[in-house]
């Protein structure tokens, strides 16, 4: 047992800080739970975290339904996590997943509603495509701006997030509002819905897992993936090697937006069935957390998305049975990201040696506000 770390080798070298961050986040959240228990009706209970975490586990993996719920929540996070992760590989921090998600969701909802009576085999793929296209267009805009003018994608995507939310609220209210409802929403998607593959689990999870492996293949095995990674790691060397960083930057943002749009599409076509202002707004930002926790690696993102899906799926049971509020999950998620960003803390606590080669993804994120030069901009 002694050398299990050695046997895992390079995988463990990349995964250890994320894994330790999760452990540390649960430990600190446990303290929060214990301390806050003193102020509740039930009174001080040092064992409450164990009960709470046990219910969290039961609610997320304890039964077939629980697992299905976890995967349903994880599927859009896989797409969203890939969107952020792919951007980070190219040295781009796409904060705009939230906006691209909304545009994709709206496009899928509007297309799905207009094809509500067509056969699923035709309607569903078209609605998915519409979602992908919507997200791609909305990702292309900041990509083009960065490539042409050097405008930093963090700034432009934050602005575009607000623009997307407000424009779509107007569109739902004044353009495509379905009659007969007390609140603004699109019409029902009917036959365009994603079919179920078992229990309440819809086909979206299959698409999401496929996207994980497709993205992995793209990054590891194709020349485009090599170009994306080279531009992200060293744009000067990319230019020297004959690549076009400007083009790669715009293309990567477009693909990133496409993935985010698909996250929105499966949420509409698999879960809600319609678009209404304010739906699942958390996916956009949870995707950033998922990508960071997964170290931008598609397989890492797969596991991170399942973990975050499990949080969402298991939290209600935890709250019902132990009175520990759902918000504890937000604390854990926030702590995970905190420890990933300040990985020195984790390295101290668990005596992990710093890597020889800097992990570029976190540098992209933390450097985004530090005035790093626009990497993809033309000279």
């Amino acid at each position, binding site marked *: 047992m002694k050398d299990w770390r050695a046997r895992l080798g390079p995988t463990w070298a990349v995964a250890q800080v994320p894994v330790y961050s999760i452990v540390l986040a649960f430990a600190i959240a446990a303290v929060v739970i214990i301390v806050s228990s003193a102020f509740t009706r039930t009174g001080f209970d040092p064992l409450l975290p164990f009960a709470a975490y046990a219910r969290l586990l039961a609610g997320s993996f304890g039964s077939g339904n629980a697992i299905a719920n976890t995967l349903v929540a994880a599927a859009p996070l896989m797409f969203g996590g890939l969107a952020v992760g792919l951007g980070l590989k190219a040295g781009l921090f796409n904060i705009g997943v939230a906006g691209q998600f909304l545009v994709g969701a709206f496009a899928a909802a509007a297309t799905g509603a207009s094809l509500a009576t067509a056969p699923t085999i035709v309607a569903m793929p078209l609605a998915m495509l519409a979602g992908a296209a919507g997200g791609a267009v909305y990702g292309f805009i900041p990509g083009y701006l960065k490539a042409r003018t050097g405008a930093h994608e963090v700034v432009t995507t934050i602005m575009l997030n607000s623009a997307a939310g407000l424009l779509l609220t107007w569109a739902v209210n004044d353009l495509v509002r379905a009659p007969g409802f007390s609140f603004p929403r699109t019409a029902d998607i009917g036959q365009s819905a994603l079919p179920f593959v078992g229990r309440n689990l819809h086909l979206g999870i299959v698409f999401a897992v496929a996207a994980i492996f497709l993205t992995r293949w793209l990054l590891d095995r194709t*020349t485009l993936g090599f170009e994306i*990674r080279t531009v992200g790691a060293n744009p*000067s*060397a990319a230019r*020297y*090697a*004959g690549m076009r960083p400007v083009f790669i930057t715009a293309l990567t943002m477009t693909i990133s937006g496409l993935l985010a749009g698909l996250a929105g599409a499966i949420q509409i076509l698999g879960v809600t069935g319609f678009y209404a202002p304010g739906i699942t707004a958390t996916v956009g930002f949870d995707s950033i957390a998922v990508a960071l926790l997964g170290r931008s690696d598609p397989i890492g993102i797969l596991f991170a998305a399942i973990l975050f899906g499990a949080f969402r799926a298991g939290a209600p049971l935890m709250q019902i049975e132990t009175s520990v509020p759902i918000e504890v999950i937000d604390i854990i998620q926030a702590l995970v990201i905190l420890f990933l960003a300040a990985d020195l803390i984790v390295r101290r606590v668990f005596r992990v040696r710093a890597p*020889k*080669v800097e992990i570029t993804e976190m540098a992209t994120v933390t450097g985004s506000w530090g005035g790093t030069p626009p990497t993809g901009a033309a000279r």
Partner: protein
Amino acid sequence: MTENLPVLEMRGITKRFATGTLANDAIDLDLRAREIHALLGENGAGKSTLMNILYGLLTPDAGEILIDGKPVAIRDPADAIARGIGMVHQHFMLVPVLTVAENVVLGQEITRGGQLLDMRAAERRIRELADRLGFSIDPHARVDQLSLGQQQRVEILKAIYRGARILVLDEPTAVLTPQETREIFGVLRRLREEGTSIIFISHKLDEVLEIADRITVIRRGKVVGTRTPAETNENELAELMVGRAVSLRVDRGKSHPVDVVLEVVGLRATDDRRHDVLQGVDLTVRAGEIVGVAGVGGNGQDELVECIVGLRKPTGGTLKLEGRDITRLSIDARRDLGIAYVPADRQRFGLVLPFSLPDNFVLTRYAERPYAGGLGGFVRQHSAIRGEATRLATEFDVRASSLDAAAATLSGGNQQKVVVAREFRHDLKTLILDQPTRGLDVGSVEFIHKQVIERRDAGVAVLLVSAELDEVLDLSDRILVMYRGRVVGSFAAAEAQREKVGLLMATGEARS
């Protein structure tokens, strides 16, 4: 106290890194008062480790440090500074947007009434200090507007200002022109007269022989000898350093140039700030000859090379390869026609440091067969890439812990070998070398020079740009001198005397 008592002694310093490398193996070093003591060794010999221990950046596993005969513990750079040790790193630690004075006093500001910065007093002291050391510097100048030579003086001022009696200079001449080197030597001699003891780290033999009072040579973490310049010579020092006899002179036969391969006509270009840096450059390189471009850095050499390989768009003139106009072709297209390029900055342009060796070995050919194929060249062929990497690593003797190691973990010499191995392909027409041996040790330089000559003899047209005049003189069959964006002189190898070329580099005029 006599003059010869050591001010600093390092005894039995041993440091083993977590990776298992024994970087320092029981090293003894003593520094006398008013001495310039050179520390000579190849890259990775352990010079920097030893100095980082002295400066408190690393903790030794064994050994002790004595200052003025008393053992001291140096836990961090603050300790080192308090004990009068100053360090000038190879990469300057200055804040570019601050002035000279602000940089010098940073952390040791003079204040009035406890709170207010007294920059006037600081500037006065800096002027006095510079006067004493025999150079002038404007304390108000912003550091990012100074030349590298001037920035280095700021670093020295900073150390002396903090009361350094022992000054460590890590490869101080690596970035300097011959003139600047001569000037900095003057400053160091003045410092010695003032009573400062200096450790001078270098791997340049001629410089060490010129400036040092004593020379200690380190190889693979061990001291292999201490000499005075009077009792040794370049050949002995090189042999001590490398551990075998090294030929310092490049051994090359006569060149047999044939047809013109590369032709540059009336080339004009601007730099990143849109200043005209190339003002009509004409040159030709024939198959089977090495044309060297000498010049003080910043006279347009970088832009010339960038224009030839396609990284910069010329504003005028034409480039021809075997008679074909390539002025408007992309980098890829030129590479396909047989232009290879070894860039000056291997870490910025030549390599992707986090990537593995195979990915770096095919960096400029990643989209070509057999490294890409399937789906119209979209899929990378890992076995072909690995095969090529294995072949090149063996042929060019690239030493790495494994093929999957990141390029960042390689020594500078091995990194450069990766770039050279990749660019020295067989279907080469012309080879553009920009500072091909900058920062490399004697052994690697010898190896790369041999490879260049081999390519020349195989009929490749070689254009060599180097800030090291000796390299240009040793290697080239024809020598061009660049000055302010023009070629101002051309010499055949036999008639190029060091002084003549040097004068032309410095003034742009041939009269003496």
